């Protein structure tokens, strides 16, 4: 009987309820999408900052000229990306040229910002040259660089706007042989995750007392700062929008009760208990709340997924942009608001005098 009543109420006011439903579903959609985006934004922004390359540098300390090559392994055991670099002066056609050596496989993730014509890595007997070097010696891809002691074929031309532009870049072992050092590097660049930066630095400093383990402050702090600011902007906007939409939802539910004063009058006149009428309205609201939250959740996830794919396509493989865990908060908030708003409006049920209402006053 009770449920029959509720169902009928829904049937007869299809259009009105459809509108209320639309408004609620839209709020739930917005809430889900914003929650989803917000809960994942920090990780995604930090991925963006990986492009800046190293955020820790291990350099020689005191009177030393090199750091032990073991530093690379130590950093990798900390879960960081690390690559050794060695610098020396070589000769090309009798002119001095800076020769840099690196482990291309390891350095790859740290040198994403290099703009390279052709290959980014060189094998033994091959090399990359900086754009200034290429221009100075009029060298082209595939030609031979007459580097004394280690002639090589040019596989790529690098322009970075930095020191690399005036260097010839060769595999690490070759530069080490030219420099006459063994098991050592001029410096080691390390990229640690922003969240674990300080602990990685501390661990490396402890393990390498003879080296200078430095945080690259500009990169690390800008990353922390920008991630924090974007996150707090999103947080505040999400909070504001949620506050406004819950207000909207609650006024919607109140309206659903208020506009039915006449019906309440009739129910009371034929002897329904107030509690029973309130329960009737409450269950109607909760059904509406559940359905709109579920629909809003689905659409919201789709919106979040779409935003994630549009803006962060590189992390789409990980299924990012969608946070399934937001269902409970979204439904909880929607239902709680529905219940509170309905009950607040339902307080009127006790005050309604059937005779007055039905007379049309």
């Amino acid at each position: 009987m009770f449920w029959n009543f509720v169902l009928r109420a829904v049937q007869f006011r299809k259009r009105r309820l459809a509108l209320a439903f639309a408004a609620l579903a839209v709020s739930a959609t917005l809430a889900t999408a914003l929650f989803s985006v917000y809960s994942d934004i920090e990780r995604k922004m930090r991925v963006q900052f990986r492009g800046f390359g190293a955020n820790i540098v291990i350099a020689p300390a005191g009177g030393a000229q090199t750091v032990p090559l073991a530093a690379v392994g130590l950093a990798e055991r900390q879960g960081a990306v690390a690559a050794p670099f060695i610098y020396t002066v070589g000769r090309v056609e009798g002119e001095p040229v800076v020769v840099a050596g690196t482990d291309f496989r390891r350095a790859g993730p740290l040198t994403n910002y290099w703009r390279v014509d052709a290959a980014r890595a060189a094998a033994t007997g091959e090399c990359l040259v900086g754009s200034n070097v290429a221009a100075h010696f009029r060298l082209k891809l595939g030609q031979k660089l007459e580097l004394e002691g280690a002639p090589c074929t040019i596989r790529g031309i690098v322009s970075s706007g930095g020191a690399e532009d005036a260097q010839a870049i060769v595999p690490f072992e070759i530069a080490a042989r030219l420099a006459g050092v063994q098991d050592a590097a001029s410096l080691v660049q390390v990229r640690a995750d922003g969240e674990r930066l300080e602990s990685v630095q501390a661990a490396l400093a402890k393990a390498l007392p003879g080296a200078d383990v430095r945080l690259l402050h500009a990169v690390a702090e800008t990353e922390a700062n920008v991630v924090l600011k974007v996150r707090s902007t999103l947080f505040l906007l999400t909070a504001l929008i949620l506050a406004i939409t819950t207000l909207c939802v609650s006024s919607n539910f109140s309206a659903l009760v208020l506009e039915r004063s006449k019906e309440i009058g009739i129910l009371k006149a034929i002897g329904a208990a107030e509690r029973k009428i309130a329960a009737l309205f409450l269950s109607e609201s909760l059904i509406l709340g559940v359905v709109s939250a579920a629909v809003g959740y689905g659409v919201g996830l789709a919106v979040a997924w779409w935003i994630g794919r549009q803006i962060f396509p590189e992390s789409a493989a990980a299924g990012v942009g969608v946070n399934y865990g937001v269902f409970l908060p979204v439904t909880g908030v929607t239902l709680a608001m529905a219940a509170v708003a309905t009950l607040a409006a339902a307080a009127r049920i006790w005050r309604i005098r059937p005779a007055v209402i039905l007379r049309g006053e």
Partner: protein
Amino acid sequence: MFLRFVSQSIRRSPRRKAMTVAAVAMGTAVATAMLGVMLDIGDRVNRELRSLGANLMVTPKARSLPVEIGGISYRPVSSQDYIPEDQVKKIKSTFWQLNITGFAPSMMASASLNGRNVPVEGVWFRRRFRGADGSMLEAGLRTVNGGWKVDGRWIADGNRNDDARDAMLGGAVARRLGLKPGDTVDLFGQPFTVAGVVTTGGEEEDRIFVRLEVLQRLVNRPGQVDAVQVGALTKPEDEFARKDPTKMTQKEYDRWYCTPYISSIAHQIEEVLPMAVARPIWRVADNEGKVLGKIRGLMLLITLAALASAGLTVWSVMATTVLERRGEIAIMQATGAGNGLVAALFSTEVALEGAAGGLIGSWVGLLMAEWVGRAVFQTSLEIPGILGPVVVGAAVLASVAGAAQPLRRALMLEPAVTLRGGE
């Protein structure tokens, strides 16, 4: 009569009207706040990203290849290329001068300290000068790398004839020599006071910084500069920016020239300093563009989502109000009002409600955007003044659009049917 009708309708059920207006106001507030933040967040974040340091490097058009490791030149001294110091200020007279947040001319030399060569960089620390238009401008290391951690103090280089021997040490140099602020260090046979110690983590830590004039005198290269670091606010590179400017049509070239891409700013610096080349430092420039692009895009899409839902909210609220008043419409029709008149009456009312809600909402929304800006970026956002009117207009449009369909349906129904309570 018409106006009396509308005002009566509003006066008779103020509570319901207030609820409608409130709903419209809420939708509008969401839209305004999102738009306000979105329109300015790019600029804010761009300024935050400037703490990465310079994104452009200006060097002399070298005939010889620089041979430098960690700031120490391995090239036997030959004819040095240079940029004249008195030309450097022209960087601030280029087309995008307002986007250039700072620049710092410098000169490198190396000094022998404890039997080891240490690079010494002569720079402007903070210098004020009068620009071409007469306004006071600022340049120097502190305008490019203002975020550096300094133990002690920065060197003040106000007076160009001041011969005060102050030096700032990089952290690694200070650690190696066991020096701290207030100590004395011998450079080029002259005693220098350590003003401060700089900790950056980068190659600056292996350097010693002194005033440009002091170094110029010591190495006998007056008026010469080896490099200028420039920090500029840029627009992230897109497809168009990657085109080769020399192959553009005149129209494309004008568009490229008048957009603050890193490449066009570099080009404009080369125009005023013909003896130099300006190159983007891609590590900074490229990534800062990427980060900025992501944030802008994200905010844009979120704003679109919020706008869509705000529009839907306003639309559904207005549709509801018309739906509730079908009886009223039927009575009007029954008493002889034409469809046009009823439609006009209702649309006026709805438009008025939309305008009222829009006004309140945009005001609240602007306050909210302002609050977000202050809370996060500690400065107020620059929100274009046109935003308010546009949002109010949109609120009115959404309101009328929401009311239109149910109104049309109600008008098409026979009054008798509606009044009987059926449909």
